[in-house]
């Protein structure tokens, strides 16, 4: 049975028709709304490539049912900041030249953004703990940590 669901994404509201309310939010964003972000990495909540914010909390959109997001404020990486008004993490990730293939980058920036909101000046151990479990296959770990520490050390 088709159900109408309204999603609030990056400051805009969209009504979509879904057959399966258990459909992960990821497919609503990518397929119904045509966004190029977030990315499908595993569909199992193991990697973070699909991370978005629901009311400021980092969640894995591949394993969050679309029906659970209907009243939330959804923020994607594109909505976190723009080249004109970048989030400090986006500036830092660009300056540190972090991404190689870059497919994982949602996970790191969106998770770190949520972390920094809770803990603006985390220690290196807190950063590592907060990001543990996210995956980067190209091995840009050192650059990721440099970029986040750069923001964490800002006043």
């Amino acid at each position: 049975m088709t159900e109408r669901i309204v999603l609030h994404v990056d400051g805009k509201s969209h009504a979509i028709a879904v057959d399966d309310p258990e459909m992960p939010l990821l497919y609503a964003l990518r397929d119904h709304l045509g966004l190029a972000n977030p990315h499908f990495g595993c569909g199992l909540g193991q990697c973070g490539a699909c991370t978005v914010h629901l009311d400021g909390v980092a969640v894995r959109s591949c394993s969050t049912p679309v029906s659970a997001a209907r009243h939330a404020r959804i923020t994607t990486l594109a909505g976190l900041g723009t080249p004109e008004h970048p989030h400090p993490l986006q500036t830092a990730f660009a300056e540190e030249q972090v991404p190689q293939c870059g497919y994982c980058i949602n996970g790191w920036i969106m998770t770190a953004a949520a972390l920094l909101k809770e803990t603006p000046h985390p220690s290196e151990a807190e950063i590592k703990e907060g990001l543990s479990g996210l995956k980067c296959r190209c091995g840009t770990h050192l650059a990721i940590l440099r970029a986040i520490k750069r923001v964490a050390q800002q006043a």
Partner: protein
Amino acid sequence: MVHSQPSQVSRRDVLKGAATLVVTLGMAGELSVALAAGPAARPAPTADQLDSWIAVHADGNVTAFFGKIDGGQGLDVAVAQMVAEELDLAVARVQVVMGDTARTVNQGGASGSTGVQKGGVTLRNVAAEARRVLVELAGLRMGVPPEQLTVSDGVVGLPGDAVKRLSYGQILGNHPFDRQLDWNGKLGNDLVAKGKAVPKRPDQYQVVGQPVPRRDVAAKVFARAEYVTDVKLPGMLHGRMIRPPAAGAMPQAVDESSIRAIKGARLVWKNGFLGVVAPREWDAIRAAQMLAVTWSTPQPPFPDQPSLYDHIRRAPVVKRQVEAEKGNVEAAMAGAARVIEAEYEWPFQSHASMGPACAVADVREGGATVWTGSQKPHYARDGVAAILGLPPEKVHGIWVLGPGSYGRNDAGDAAIDAALLSQAVGRPVRLQGMRHEGHAWDPKGPASVHRIRAGLDQQGKIVSYRFESKGLSRIDINSHESHPSDSLAGHLMGLPLQPHQGFGVPQEAYDFPNRLMAWETIPPLLDRASPLRTSHLRDPVGPQIHFAAESFIDELAAATGSDAVEFRLRHLSAPRDVAVVKAAAERAGWQTRPSASRRDEHGETAAGRGIAYVRRSGTIVAVVAEVEVDRQSGKVWAKRFVVAHDCGLIINPDGLRLAIEGNIVQGTSRALWEQVNFQPDRVTSVDWDTYPILDISETPQTVDIVLINRPEIAPSGAGEPSMRPVAAAIGNAIFDATGVRLRRVPFTPQQIKAVWA
């Protein structure tokens, strides 16, 4: 981005402005360029025409057409620097188009770290020729002999004359060069093209050697980068493949009514090729999960995993190749004061790319277009053409960045799968794998056993050396994707595997007076559609061979009571190699002493350091690793690395450092954690939980990189060489810390606890 109906676009269309140049401004100075398809259909570019490589636009900016691709190591920037250098043009004014079969010549795609070493060198040649022709044309126009003219940021002028000045745009803007090049007649990595111009001398370089920033970074951090997963076409369906539950199983019966409830879901089934399509991606995924299939139950083809290495030792040899032979190894061994022998083992490893591969195909009557993340798009195009029964020139391959690569991963299969689905349903199809297809069904890096013997004289010098590898071939599946028998779909539709035979031997410069180095391959474990079929994985067979070779050198040093650096230097005389080993040791503050001679028996962790040194196709690398091993858990933290790296002329030091960092981290992951697990009938490493990689919490504290620039030596590769010494450096450091020698990768806590009390 929505693509219009695709077509073939040539440089001529670009020059005429028939194609639309879409420029997205990201961070200041960074450009991301997508060239939307124009209307005309023209033959693909040929290597012997200057216009195939370089186009000059009306504003004097230049587009270079590069037949390789960059997967995120910044190769496109290095190529832009080489082109800008020869053209005397600001590097920001050089765009690089990569990997589109209608617009670039086949330079082999990403392959063997040859991006700069081979691909870039031809771009340098053609850019030098373009400058020569532009100056010649300017001279004719101004009535000045070309040798009197100079070029500054794309303006040709007569020094001291404010009037005699012409920009590249004024000289040629939007018109073809129409000049022939000398071409060696080869395609792929070995293609060489050049004109009459002689490229600059290194001492004239202004742009080469500078830390020019990457161009793709801003688009990626602002979610504006287009990946192959983002390609959308009008009328496109989403596809998913259904892989056999057991290796070698074939579908016997398929109940299409099992997916009838899903809107628009359709079945595509031919022999073992089994997929579904649906208008919505989630519906395609549900249909793939719900489809009722009766599978055959073949004999389990694989050995028990614990007996894998015994299987390799016992298996018949398909091919033996002696790669190097010098002196008389056995006679020298017989006369040696001491003979030492050891064996090392390396497991199957997976590309485990960040996202499962994706491809979009639009197969029409008499032609097709395929958007692929394959790192060899020209060969992927050839493979799609072959399976569709079309001539290659009727298939347009468009490379779009994929979700990770590192060799012949699942992208090569996705392109062919998508094409077959599109052909079957008569609509464009976007196919992406599920997670298990990225882990369990990608071609694997081969498992192997390495046996090494050395004879030492009274003074502890190696007088005889014998290195033999035995393992699965590195190329059951050719790393090129041009033949369907190298694809999963080909196998599933009935083409038998035609395994190629290849492995390798160590690359170093030790002065052993007698040496023999050979490899042997064994038969594939399953003759078609095997989830353990092998192909290239970053630095193909380099990590396993050099894990063995450089662990063994360390064992010899320890056996003779020698320091590991001093022992290596005792056997090295090649000046660049000596300099690299010394540079790593010096930066690391290496203390000269035998390894494992200063162990702390009581702390919570045991600390140690180890070194490994390698060559790879002209590049020389030494790595010092410092580790801490947790006494309680057996867990290893590779805490610090020092890397000394000599790849000849450095094009971009920042890009080089970041590429090396990535290799060190991925190499550490492979050494500490990675092995593909399997049962006799299936691969059981199907996701990140069952195939763990290095976590961010395990990141080294520092990777200290010493770049040795040798402008007088042609640039060699840097994309992979620093991967190969990592496992040995860590293993040698673990030995120093614990006194325990690990001869099998990965160095998991379980393995360490089992041998280190």
